[in-house]
């Protein structure tokens, strides 16, 4: 009888919609494995957020590339990683440093994709980080002592490295790689959390004899990109790991890689135990615009089990995550001219491709209809919150010969005004199944920080000029703002210790896209870099 009750409870739990909200802890990069970036804490809400005050600030001391990470908080300890693979463990109440770890980088090597780090993963007392020279390291989360270290591939050979946070599920460290703009063949690896031993590899470009290999012409598969440069998600009830695969290389020229180029620009669902492909959905067959499908994959039950993924080309894709079936795609940017739209089966309508040797207006720019900075799902509001960017470029494609591990772009670009002369950024609240805009917050520059949603009906993010601010999730009205002195490119979180809710944000301007902005907004060259964590809470008597 007890067994039967247990079984019924188990089935009941499996039927209940996945809860991706965080509470006291912020244990994973995306909050939880479903990447909602939603905190169920509601002590800070729309009525009192105006009183939010700084509790402490931690300066990391290395502002090269800004601060792009997502801090984690587990049982009152905050873990934050910075450029050049430094990790700090801090008392989450006071900001006091508990330990620090400075990864020993080789004296001479090139970090084309760096120097930033976007986060770490923690499970069973082990903290895991990918490095600029393409190692995966494990630390004792209590002390910062190094436990193991394994090289994925020589960074000097592959021109690739790791800047994204790993995903740890079922004792496996799943970690991607950069290299999508280099002559490199992408992959995703799983390592054993305890020993560091390699468990499986999924090649994002199928090799000879594998299904999908025929979508690559000649030897182009060896140099075809397909990086896995952000962090994936996991559905425990399906046992599936979801990862978004980046653009094919060369970015702007596809003449030597004729075919669909699987599995670039695709969402792949892999068996967590084996790394074997269960299904895939390719957003952009034969991409010639650099439209990664690299960004976060948000798992939501509506109640249909769907996933939401914003692509760099400016469309948000909603798929059935049990089988990859296309449900809908809607734009997050107004200025999109590389296609006329997405058809009922997810097919691209009216491709507008770059041409060799002649500039062509393409919108959005290479920086994307949105950059990688993540959106948030609020189950309370029933809305998906994401930034979007209005900007265009003139692309000139060129044929290039790939050289292993070297940059392989296939063209150049120059940022140009949008046809309506209204370049800039925005943050919108969207109905996930229709793309209907409930509200939109406009900003003169691209918004490049991730979004945090809370049960207090609040949306937090930061801007290029250093303002970290809160919007009302229902109206988009700005309720509170604090200038941290440097722009925002990281991901804010919320956590609680001893019953007090905190909002924490990295502050620190930098990154490739921030650099790109100088082409169009020359004054941004003067925006100061920074690298600090700011933590806010309500004054003690107010809560």
């Amino acid at each position, binding site marked *: 009888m007890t067994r039967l009750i247990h079984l019924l409870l188990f089935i009941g739990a499996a039927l209940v919609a996945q809860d991706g909200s965080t509470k006291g802890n912020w244990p994973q990069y995306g909050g939880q494995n479903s990447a909602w970036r939603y905190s169920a804490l509601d002590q800070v809400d729309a009525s009192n957020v105006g009183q939010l005050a700084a509790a402490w600030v931690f300066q990391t001391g290395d502002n090269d590339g800004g601060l792009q990470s997502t801090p984690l908080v587990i049982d009152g300890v905050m873990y934050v990683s910075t450029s050049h693979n430094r990790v700090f463990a801090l008392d989450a109440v006071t900001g006091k440093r508990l330990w620090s770890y400075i990864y020993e980088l080789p004296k*001479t090597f*090139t970090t084309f994709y760096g120097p930033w780090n976007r986060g770490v993963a923690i499970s069973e007392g082990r903290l895991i980080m990918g490095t600029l020279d393409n190692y995966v390291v494990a630390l004792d989360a209590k002390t910062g002592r190094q436990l193991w270290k394994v*090289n994925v591939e*020589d960074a000097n050979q592959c021109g690739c490295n790791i800047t994204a946070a790993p995903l740890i599920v079922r004792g496996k460290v799943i970690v991607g790689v950069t290299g999508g703009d280099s002559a490199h*063949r992408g992959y995703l690896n799983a390592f054993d959390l305890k*020993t560091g031993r390699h468990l499986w590899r999924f090649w994002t470009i199928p090799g000879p004899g594998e299904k999908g290999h025929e979508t690559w012409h000649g030897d182009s598969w060896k140099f075809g990109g397909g990086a896995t440069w952000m962090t994936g998600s996991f559905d425990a009830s399906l046992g599936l790991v979801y990862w978004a695969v980046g653009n094919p290389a060369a970015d702007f020229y596809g003449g030597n890689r004729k075919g669909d180029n699987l599995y670039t620009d695709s969402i792949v669902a892999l068996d967590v135990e084996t790394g074997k492909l269960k299904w895939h959905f390719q957003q952009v067959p034969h991409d010639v615009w650099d439209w990664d499908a690299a960004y976060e994959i948000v798992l939501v039950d509506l109640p249909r089990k769907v996933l939401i993924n914003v692509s760099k080309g400016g469309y948000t894709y909603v798929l059935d995550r049990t089988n990859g079936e296309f449900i809908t795609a809607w734009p997050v940017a107004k200025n999109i001219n590389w296609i006329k739209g997405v058809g009922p089966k997810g097919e691209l309508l009216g491709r507008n491709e770059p041409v060799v040797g002649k500039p062509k207006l393409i919108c959005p720019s290479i920086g994307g209809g949105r950059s990688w900075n993540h959106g948030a799902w609020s189950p309370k509001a029933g809305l998906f919150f994401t930034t979007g960017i209005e900007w265009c470029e003139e692309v000139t494609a060129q044929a290039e010969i790939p050289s292993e591990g070297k940059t392989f772009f296939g063209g*150049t670009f120059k940022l140009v005004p949008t046809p309506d002369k209204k370049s800039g950024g925005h943050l919108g609240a969207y109905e996930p199944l229709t793309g209907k805009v409930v509200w939109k917050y406009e900003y003169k520059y691209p918004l490049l920080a991730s979004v945090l949603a809370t049960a207090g009906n609040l949306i937090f993010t930061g801007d290029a000029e250093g303002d970290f601010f809160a919007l009302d999730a229902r109206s988009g009205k700005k309720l509170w703002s604090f200038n941290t002195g440097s722009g925002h490119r990281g991901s804010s979180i919320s956590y609680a210790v001893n019953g007090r809710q905190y909002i924490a944000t990295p502050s620190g301007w930098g990154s490739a*896209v921030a650099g790109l902005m100088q082409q169009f907004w020359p004054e941004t060259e003067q925006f100061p870099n920074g690298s600090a964590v700011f933590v806010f809470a309500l004054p003690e008597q107010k809560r």
Partner: protein
Amino acid sequence: MKLAIGVFFLPVLLLADQTGTSLGTSAVVARGDKLFAQGCAVGYCHGSAGTAARSPRLRGRTFEKDYLVKVIRDGIPNTAMPAWGDRLTDDDIVALVAYIQSLATATPEGPAPSEIASLAPPVAVKDSDLSPDVRRGRELFYDPQRLQRCSNCHRVQGIGTPVGPDLAKLSRAQLAAEAVNALKYGRPRRVQGIVTKDGDRFPAILIERGPSETRIYDLKAIPPVQRNLPTTEIQSIQQPSGWRHSQAVQSYATDGVYTYNSY
């Protein structure tokens, strides 16, 4: 491997002779423009005509020519700026310097070729200088399409992970005599068998055994894992482990082993 050869300026002078000084200068800048578009303006680098991206703006700024040559040739360590010395010829670098200097004022004229020609960047060894066997051996050694490859454990010419012996220190004769045999049948003495208190058994190379911590390379899976184990967790260290070299390089066919040996 780089050889310093000081004859690089010949093509530039020839170019100047054929086209006349002012045309020659324009031609050098135009060539630099083309090279810049192919290698420097791309992606998140210096932007079209040096207008900036993740890498610094070059337009409207003045740089010393020696500095530009050094940075283009050698790169800037620990930054995104790669070394181009092995990919560009000397006159390519000269042309790039001329073009980048022309961006300071954004006029079409660059510095006179004779001025540029006083620089002496080195010349890299090209792939075509190697015999087919050696080239094939090198490909196999570093082959990124194999999970099991020699460079997982050996570093040669700065590429690979230095877990096993430095093969560059072995003489040609030693390699010829031992390498094939070692690869196929060898049980390296350095590899020991470790048993931990939780019952895990695995082949490993001992790096350092301290009173509190023992550092090893765990060879149970490839690539090897550098692990720092509490010394008290180690039950025993046995020698030999029974680990065979061939376990780590199963992906190579016998002919590959021979070809590797040529390398």
